């Protein structure tokens, strides 16, 4: 599996950069409706920060906790997205017709706004999880059996 990196410079820089890039990922995700960005970019930036954590501190360290835990939610992002669509179905509209999201006290455009926001979050979660998962799969060595349970939920 991935071993921790022993350079002090890399580790210190990592401690600073990783939280910053995670914040940036969340900002891009939330700001996607007003400027460039959105679910994909936010998710990828978030995934990149976690991959960085894994590469610098190793999979088993506490600093990579988030990256490891997030793998348990393999399909959560997709289920959020499909769940929003399903709510529209239950509300009586077509799949993903946000006008039928049953949210009280909101006019139709705002319902669409909320729908877009929720689905963006779904996309971001899915992209982040899958990015980390693919990175871990690609760096697996052939005869590893030990850390398997830690990495796959």
């Amino acid at each position, binding site marked *: 599996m991935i071993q921790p990196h022993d350079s002090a410079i890399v580790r210190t820089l990592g401690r600073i950069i990783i939280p910053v890039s995670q914040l940036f990922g969340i900002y891009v995700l939330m700001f996607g409706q007003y400027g*460039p960005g959105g679910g994909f970019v936010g998710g990828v930036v978030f995934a990149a920060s976690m991959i960085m954590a894994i590469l610098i501190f190793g999979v088993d360290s506490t600093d990579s906790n988030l990256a490891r835990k997030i793998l348990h939610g*393999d399909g959560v*992002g*997709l289920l959020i997205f499909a769940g929003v669509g399903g709510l529209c179905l239950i509300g009586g509209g077509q799949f*993903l017709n946000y006008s039928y999201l049953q949210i009280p006290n909101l006019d139709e455009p705002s319902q669409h706004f909320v*729908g*877009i926001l929720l689905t963006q979050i779904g996309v971001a979660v899915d992209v982040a999880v899958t990015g980390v998962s693919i*990175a871990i799969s690609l760096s*697996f060595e052939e005869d590893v059996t030990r850390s398997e349970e830690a990495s*796959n939920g």
Partner: protein
Amino acid sequence: MAIEIPLLILLVLTAAGAILVKDLIAAVLILGSYSFALALVWALVGAVDVAFVEAVVGAGLATVFFLLTLFRTNEKDRQIRRPPVPWTAIVGLPLLGLLLLFGAGDLPTFGDVNSPASTHISPVYLESSLEDTRTPNVVTAVLMDYRSFDTLVETIVIFTAGIACALLLRKGGS
């Protein structure tokens, strides 16, 4: 147009570097800079969202995937001998090139305001996205609302890729 030409030349040069360099890690890093040059070109054309995605996904994530693979495998493109060029390439490439040039004849010119693509459906998105969805970024509105189903399916593609990598590489995983 004036800034574009040097960028386009840079694009071709970086692509050439990625193709010709023998050291695979260097080639992959040059490919990352190719992605970045591409992102710059797109930002110039007005496609900021695409540029952002290309910069993050192409220059970032794709490079990381390439590098992780190379760490686990072989870093050198050894190329002991040049194999003969397959006949499909000899026949197919010129034909494809001719087809590309043939198709170019009737395409609207670059930046044409009256092309069907600029007049048929896209104005609807631009003009009604704010009213329909309160979302000023029209690309996000189309991506997540008007054509949100495509995005859902594409999220499935990503999920599938994750599952597929786990199936292919993790021995006795799960």
